[in-house]
């Protein structure tokens, strides 16, 4: 379980996170929703210890995140961080050198799944395919937790569908996923849990099947209530 407890973060005078708390379970897909600038990416960066927080605590399976944690949790940022001149094969080799948890079998399977050619240079790929490579590099790690920042933004509908298919496959099964997005429609049926954010705080945290069951509301219905209130 990933536990985010009352984290606060300021950039200069701007209070970006003002006491954010939520949990994300293993084996579940947790979705952080909020408009741009609400602090979604900052939360992911904080979980990965990429940015220091001013106060609060983040625990991964009950422990603080250290260098060793990165064999257990990975972050797929919204833009690929590999050198553009590398081919996909070279990028995979790089990951293999860097991480013990790299699983080449799974990477090969993902190449097929996304219909990518490993001899292609990253710089020559379309936006959609670059996003798929980015995803591949993260998903091929044998880690328990995966954080994904806006995996659907700016990508054509077929690529989005392909990426959404990953979520229902064994490539994700059993792992804990936190995904940020501002467009929920593609994944409404895929997510277990929703965390609604606004102005640095959590407005509501809920289980999507539970609100359908107990209140007959869709995730979008709840968003409308919460954000328009």
């Amino acid at each position: 379980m990933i536990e985010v407890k009352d984290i606060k973060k300021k950039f200069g005078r701007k209070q970006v996170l003002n006491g954010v708390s939520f949990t994300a379970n293993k084996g579940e897909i947790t979705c952080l929703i909020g408009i741009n600038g609400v602090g979604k990416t900052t939360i992911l960066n904080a979980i990965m210890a990429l940015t220091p927080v001013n106060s609060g605590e983040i625990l991964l399976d009950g422990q603080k995140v250290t260098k060793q944690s990165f064999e257990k949790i990975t972050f797929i940022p919204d833009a690929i961080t590999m050198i553009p001149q590398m081919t996909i094969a070279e990028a995979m080799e790089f990951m293999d050198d860097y991480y013990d948890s790299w699983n080449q079998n799974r990477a090969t399977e993902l190449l097929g799944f996304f219909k990518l050619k490993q001899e292609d240079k990253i710089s020559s790929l379309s936006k959609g395919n670059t996003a798929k490579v980015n995803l591949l590099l993260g998903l091929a790690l044998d880690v328990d937790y995966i954080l994904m920042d806006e995996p659907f933004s700016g990508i054509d509908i077929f690529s989005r569908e392909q990426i959404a298919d990953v979520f229902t496959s064994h490539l994700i099964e059993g792992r804990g996923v936190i995904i940020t997005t501002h467009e929920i429609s593609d994944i409404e049926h895929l997510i277990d849990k929703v965390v609604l954010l606004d102005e640095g705080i959590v407005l509501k945290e809920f289980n999507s099947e539970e609100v359908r069951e107990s209140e007959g509301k869709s995730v979008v219905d709840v968003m409308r209530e919460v954000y328009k209130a």
Partner: protein
Amino acid sequence: MIVKFNNRDPVYVQVVRHFKEQIARGMLEPGQEVSSRRELASQLKINPNTVQRAYKEMEEQGLIYTEKNSPSKITRDEDVLHRVREELILEAVDTFVTSVRSINVPVDELLELVKEKYDHQSDEEGGSAHD
């Protein structure tokens, strides 16, 4: 297999309903194996946890059964199968009656209309099936 899910009813309830319809129409036969949790999740493009929940629910309702170390199967219990069909028909009729009652149509006129429409539609379906 394409199933259109709405966003307001629990997805697992919609999955159970989908199975009931398949059973009532004879698309799923007694004793037939059902897809694994993961297969169904990727076919229907929904969360594997949701499929798990749907299977649990169906097991509780006696729609499917699981023997040790083998895939779940559709029940052979005639009573249960009969009940599924009955339940779906009653539900559809209830919805129809509720919406038609507000227009106050005499029942004889209504029955005549239903019969006419029904024959007409099955003719069309029968016709297109041969195309």
